[in-house]
C-alpha cells in the first residue's frame, strides 16, 4: 500500500469522526436526542456518494471524447463506490428514521429520491452485464451513465423541495440542515467526517480500479 498524504488524512479523519462523533457533546434536541450523532455518518456518506458519482459521470464524458479501457474502468469503479456509499447512506438513514420517525421507511420525497437513484445505478450495472463486446459495453454504459445523471439526479434535489412537506431536514430551499449544524462543536466533527468519507470513496475507487487494471493485463496475455 502506498502511504500518500491523502490516505493518511482519510484514516485520521474517519477515525477522528468515529471517536469524537461518539464522545464529544451534542446539542440536546427533543426526539432526535443522541441519534443526532448519526449526522456524522449519514450525511457525509451522501456527500461522498454525490462526489464519486459526479466523478463517474466526468470519467464517462472523458471516455466519450477519448475512448480507452482505462477511463471505462475508472468510471465503472467510481459508480460502484457510489452505489456502496448510497446503500450505506440508505441503511444509516433507515436506522435514523426508525428511531426518530418511528418507521424504517416513510414515503418521504427525499427517501424515494434516494431509492430511485439506487435503482438507476442498479440498472447501470445490469446494462453493463448485458454486453459481450467490451468497447460496445464501455460506450453504451458511458452514455447511459451521463443520461441518467442528467435526467434524474438534478430532480432528486428539486422534487423534495417542490413537495414541501418532507420530514427530512434541509428540504425547504436550503440544502443545509438548518438548526442542527448551528452548533459549533458539531461542525468540528462534521467537516472532517465529510472530508474523510469523500477521500474514502476515492480510495475505494482506486483500489477497485487497480484490481480491474490487473485483471485487464492478465486478460491481455
Amino acid at each position, binding site marked *: 500500500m502506498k502511504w500518500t498524504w491523502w490516505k493518511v488524512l482519510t484514516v485520521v479523519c474517519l477515525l477522528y469522526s468515529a471517536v469524537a462523533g461518539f464522545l464529544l457533546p451534542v446539542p440536546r434536541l427533543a426526539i432526535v436526542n443522541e441519534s443526532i450523532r448519526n449526522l456524522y455518518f449519514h450525511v457525509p456518506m451522501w456527500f461522498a456518494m454525490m462526489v464519486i458519482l459526479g466523478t463517474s459521470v466526468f470519467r464517462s464524458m472523458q471516455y466519450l471524447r477519448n475512448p480507452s479501457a482505462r477511463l471505462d474502468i475508472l468510471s465503472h469503479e467510481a459508480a460502484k463506490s457510489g452505489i456502496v456509499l448510497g446503500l450505506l447512506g440508505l441503511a444509516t438513514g433507515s436506522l435514523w428514521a426508525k428511531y426518530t420517525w418511528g418507521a424504517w421507511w416513510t414515503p418521504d420525497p427525499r427517501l424515494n429520491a434516494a431509492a*430511485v437513484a439506487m435503482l438507476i445505478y442498479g440498472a447501470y450495472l*445490469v446494462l453493463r452485464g448485458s454486453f459481450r463486446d467490451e468497447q460496445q459495453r464501455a460506450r453504451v454504459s458511458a452514455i447511459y451513465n451521463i*443520461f441518467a445523471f442528467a435526467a434524474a439526479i438534478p430532480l432528486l434535489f428539486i422534487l423534495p423541495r417542490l413537495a414541501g412537506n418532507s420530514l427530512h431536514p434541509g428540504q425547504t430551499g436550503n440544502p443545509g440542515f438548518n438548526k442542527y449544524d448551528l452548533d459549533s462543536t458539531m461542525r468540528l466533527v462534521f467537516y472532517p467526517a465529510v472530508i474523510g468519507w469523500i477521500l474514502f470513496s476515492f480510495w475505494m475507487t482506486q483500489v477497485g480500479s487497480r484490481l480491474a487494471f490487473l485483471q485487464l493485463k492478465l486478460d491481455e496475455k
Partner: protein
Amino acid sequence: MRPETEPPSVPLLREISTLLAKDFRLEWRQRAALGGLLLYVGSTVFVCFLSFSLRGGTPPPPAWNALLWVILLFAALNAVAKGFMQESPGQRLYYYTLVRPQAVILAKILYNALLLTAVALLGLFLYTVFLGNPIQDAPLFVANLLLGAVGFATTLTLVSGIAAKAGGNGATLMAILGFPLMVPMLLLLIKVSKNALDGLDRGVSQQSLLTLLALNMLVGAVSYLLFPFLWRG
C-alpha cells in the same frame, strides 16, 4: 470526436421531416404493431372496467388517476420499444451514410411524441367512457397528459436506442433502464393530474408544470448531444 461523415448540405429540418415521413410510412405499412398497441390500451382499460364493475361502478379518484398513468406508462414503453429495435444493423448503417445522427434522434423523438400523444388521448377517451370522468379541470388535465406523452417520448427514445444496442432481451432491458428514469417525471405528472382531478387552483400546479417542461427540454438536449456517440458503434 464527431462522426466523420461529410457534412450534408441538406438542412437539418429537411432531414428530420423526411425521416419522420419515413417512420409514419413504415408504421402504416406494418399496421399490426399499431393495431397491437391500440388493442393493448383498449384491453387494459376494459380489464380495469370489468374489475371495478365487480364493486359496482367507477373507482375512487386516486385509484382512477394511478391506473390511468400505469396504463399509459406501459403503453408508452411498448410503443417506444419497437422504434430502434425493429431496424436492422444494415438499415442503421444505411441511414448513417445519408443523414446526421442529430436528425435521426430528433425525428425519432418527434415521431414517438406524436404517437404517444395519440395513444394518450385515445387512452383517456376510452378510460373516461368506461370508468367515468371525475376530472374537474379538463384543460389542465389534458395539457398535463400531453406534457406526459412528450416527456415519455423524450426519455424513452434514447433508452430504446441504448437497449437496442444491447440486443437480445431489449424490451426487458428497456423497462429496467427506463423506469427509474421516469419515476421523477411520473411523480410530477401524477401530482398535477391529481390537482386537475380535484379542480385545485391552477397556481398550485404551475411550478410542477414548469419543472416538467424544463425536464423535457433537458432530457431532449442531452439525448441530442449523446445520440451521435451511441450511433457510431
